[in-house]
């Protein structure tokens, strides 16, 4: 079955756009409702947050700190994450 080259091109464009959008999609998770000054401080530390639209989420399970998700990447700055790292460290000690 032959696909019309125009449709094929449109599909490719659409997929590329979706991918770009996904890449730009930023989610920040915090243990509480984050304040404006804290957002600014966070943006100063993570300049990428200034570039795109951010979706803010509250999840008390992270205890404190932040989790920044950009596309498929995750920057874990939470206390829960630090505890997890600590746990890995304990596993590594004989």
């Amino acid at each position, binding site marked *: 079955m032959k696909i019309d080259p125009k449709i094929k091109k449109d599909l490719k464009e659409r997929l590329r756009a979706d991918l770009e959008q996904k890449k730009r999609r930023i989610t920040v998770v915090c243990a509480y409702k984050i304040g404006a000054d804290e957002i600014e401080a966070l943006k100063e530390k993570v300049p990428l947050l200034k570039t795109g639209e951010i979706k803010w989420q509250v999840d008390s399970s992270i205890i404190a700190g932040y989790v920044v998700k950009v*596309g498929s990447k995750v920057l874990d700055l939470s206390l829960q994450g630090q*505890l997890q790292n600590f746990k890995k460290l*304990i*596993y590594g000690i004989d």
Partner: protein
Amino acid sequence: MENLGIDIKLMLAQLINFVLFFIIIKKFVAKPFQSFLQTERQKEAEKQKLLEDAQKQEEVLANKQKELEKKMKQEFDKTLAEAKVEANKIKEEIVLTAKKEGETLKEAAKKEIEQEKEALYKQVKKKVSDLSLFLVAKSLREILDTEERKKVSAKILSSLPKTININEN
């Protein structure tokens, strides 16, 4: 002669008779008898010789048998000694092999025990650390209020480097 009572004719006849008798006896009786005796003597001598030969052969055979028996005994003793040596060698080899196998099994069992011990230790360690961190996380979630969480968040932010870059590509 006739006065003496001797009859010459009779005497002559008797003499002739005796001579004839002697000749006949000699020719027909004494000679075959002598020949028979000679033959018997020869036969006897041959028998004796055969007997002696047989005895000699018997002696030779007996000696040979003795020698053979002696040789057989020597051979048997030698073979027995060799067999004993060989048996001892085999026994030693078997013992050595068994010992080696035993050592190998012992080592394998020891290794297995060590591995199991290690696995158990790791498992216990994992459980203890999981439990400890679970308790810590749970306690922190329950103890920390929003203000304290903000303080902790600020502390985390301040401990970070000046800027963090996230590369998506």
